[in-house]
């Protein structure tokens, strides 16, 4: 615990490498699902910061995944950028676009904000479908070979392992941020905007920052998602994808806790995917787990775990 609080970067790098190499031992047909799980966790964690932390509802997660997927392919094929330059550029671009969306919607809150982000998603989707050669229209774009210096062409398996490592980095970054002055400022403005302002917190800047932070991470997840699927297809990035992400955040808990955002995809994405033998009963299984978790833990997984932890460890249990 002490090592974590003093050298979080070191801890995260070690954990990322360890989990990444552990993941590469998984048989390849499973590894694909593990890679997708990593992507879903990244999105959920990012959204948990925006919705749970800063209290800003957004249904634009699918849009930023599309931004990540499309722009990385465009950057590599049209602008001929190398992979290692394209990805950071896409993440920064996604963050900037997210910040812009946050700035434009500053006056909105709650459902109004959510509806506005739906509008953003729809506009973007229509743009992608009618973008001609640039976006590949209804068929989307095909991923070029993924080339890294000094390394053979990246296979889907190694992309999945890398996704696991990056997921660990994301989770680490989200945890440290939520436990910093910026994370506290987000929670403060979520709970009482007037009181937050009187602490000298620039509420507008913090909201834009939350959007940028989240959108940057979701863009990165979108990049990895496109890598895993070797391309993009506009029919992937629908509102139901966004709603799925929001479901995960809500089930995880809206308190700004990251733990729930990591666990919810495990329960609601990974479990149904692994029991593929369920066949047509998969949705039934998903719905049942969803209902059960919400009925048993009405404030989400993180709150549920916390109350159990408090019962076990007494009132001094740390927040998780």
């Amino acid at each position, binding site marked *: 615990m002490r090592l974590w609080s003093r050298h979080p970067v070191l801890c995260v790098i070690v954990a990322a490498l360890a989990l990444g190499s552990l993941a590469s031992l998984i048989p390849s047909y499973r590894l694909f699902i593990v890679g997708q799980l990593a992507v879903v966790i990244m999105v959920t964690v990012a959204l948990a910061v925006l919705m749970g932390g800063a209290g800003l509802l957004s249904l634009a997660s699918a849009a930023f995944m599309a931004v990540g997927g499309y722009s990385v392919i465009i950057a590599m094929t049209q602008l001929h950028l190398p992979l290692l330059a394209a990805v950071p550029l896409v993440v920064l671009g996604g963050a900037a676009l997210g910040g812009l969306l946050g700035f434009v919607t500053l006056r909105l809150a709650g459902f109004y904000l959510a509806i506005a982000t739906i509008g953003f998603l729809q506009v973007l989707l229509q743009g992608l479908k009618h973008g001609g050669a640039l976006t590949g229209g209804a068929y989307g774009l095909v991923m070029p070979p993924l080339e890294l210096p000094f390394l053979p062409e990246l296979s889907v398996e190694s992309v999945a392992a890398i996704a696991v490592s990056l997921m660990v980095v994301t989770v680490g970054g989200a945890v440290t941020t939520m436990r910093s002055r910026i994370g506290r400022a987000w929670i403060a403005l979520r709970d*009482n905007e007037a*009181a937050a*302002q009187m602490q000298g917190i620039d509420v507008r800047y913090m909201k834009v920052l939350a959007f940028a932070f989240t959108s940057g991470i979701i863009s990165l997840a979108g990049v990895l998602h496109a890598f895993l699927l070797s391309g993009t297809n506009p029919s992937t990035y629908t509102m139901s994808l966004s709603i799925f992400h929001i479901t995960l955040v809500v089930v995880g808990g809206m308190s700004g806790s990251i733990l729930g955002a990591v666990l919810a995809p495990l329960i609601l994405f990974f479990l149904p995917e692994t029991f593929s033998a369920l066949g047509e009963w998969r949705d039934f299984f998903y719905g049942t787990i969803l209902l059960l978790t919400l009925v048993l833990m009405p404030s989400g997984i993180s709150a549920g775990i916390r109350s159990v932890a408090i019962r076990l460890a007494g*009132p001094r249990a740390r927040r998780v």
Partner: protein
Amino acid sequence: MSALLEASDLRVSFGGVHALDGFSVAVDEGEIHGIIGPNGAGKTTAINVLTGFVKLHGGRVRFGGHPLPGRPHLIAQAGIGRTFQSSAIFPDLTALENVMCGGHRWSRTGLFGCMVRSKVARAEEAELRRMASVWLERVGFQFPHEAPVRALPFGEHRKMEIARALMGKPRLLLLDEPTAGLTPTEVHLVGRLLKALRSDSAHPLSILLVEHNVPFIFSLCDRVTAVDKGATIVSGSPAEIRRHGGVIQSYLGNEGAAEPQAVPRRGETHLAEGTPPVLEMRQVEAGYGRVKVIRGIDLKVGAGELIVICGRNGAGKSTLLNALVGQPRVLGGQVLWFGERIDGLSVSQIVRKGLALVPQERGIISEQSVEANLKLSTIGLRLRRAEYRARRDSLMERFPKLWERRTQIAGTLSGGERQMLALAKALIRRPKLLVLDEPSIGLAPTIVEALAGMVADICRDGISVIVAEQNVWWVAPLAQRAYLLESGKFIAEGAPEDVIHRERILENFLGETDTDEMPPELGPAFAESPGAEILSAQRDVHGG
């Protein structure tokens, strides 16, 4: 030397109502300055103007020789800290983190630094943590610093908010009713803290506080500004203010003129032998969680009687009234309704028996029309349409103004009209007992006079009425009995003249002495410190 804060001739109006109309105040470096004034005088509006939450329509504010910045966070960064009238905590953070938020103003780490927890970020975080726990200690915060704050008592929230405001190293601290809801011991502690802060030479601090607790203000402040109807009446030393006739008038109402004239004096008591009273409370205790706000309450109300319960803000009046209708539930003792126990019943069961509560905030559905509001309050009675109309029409004779406005949206009514509507909503249910919580709050004196007439009429119809009030002058002459509530107990009861003796009010509101100490406690109810009790109850809740 020029003042640190200079506000002159401030004007603010909300939809034609002048909330501030010529408010001025000047606070010197290192001064403790108090603002007093009756409810609705514009005190909180003034604080909101000084912190940028309300836009000025006229007047000028200068802080440290410069005009105020336009937005609240910039004002905070310029060195003005504040607390809020109602609790404004961040419930999902721990006490320590709440206070650490106050240091946002002077911590600088950016997003990237926070994410990788850079060396600078770690140092800053450690400093925030250290200072926050120092401040929590200094304000006398009684709980573990890592405690979840949601369930803490109100008084602890108050202290935490003061600590949070101080964490921002302000030059001027604005406190909006810092002692509301605190026990006398805690009030004393806050007073000592504020004095200590002022003389803290390392960091000079000026304090401007708004308070209803006038003895507290007079014992603490260097200068006091009295406001009424949005304007400054007078500004000066506590001794000057105490002698000022206008101040006494604005608190106690006009001698004679404000006394309701056409209203008959109270009759003899209706507590007949043999028949059970409409309502009887025996040794009632109630509160929130395990905290008992009221204790050992004995009360009897006969048919057609008017009872007044007076007492300071936070004495437990609202809790007492709310406990009557079962929210919060009565924790001990008995409540009898015509001799039958009702303390275990649900809110709707109690209300159906014929008990109507008009809460302090009036309980009006502001998005609905006046007529819809009336109709909604008859739900559950299953009235026939003709019966409803008959009741409505008879009420509208009593409140002709409401009839004119029956299609208007209730949220757009004036304060007086809202109170009429609230009364009408209660009366249309034909209650046997009407309970009014601070009915005069936010009402202009003329409206209050009209209200007195209505209450007298209601009693004459045989409906019993309980009124809980801070400003008792308007209702006391009508009442059969009065009770004085302090720290959750009745410390006096009997004829209104005895209980609410005018001298007594004067003493309560304005204090007598200028000493360092709080005025001598009002009665034996103060003797056992409720602070300690609340604390131990809370500790039980948290299993500590």
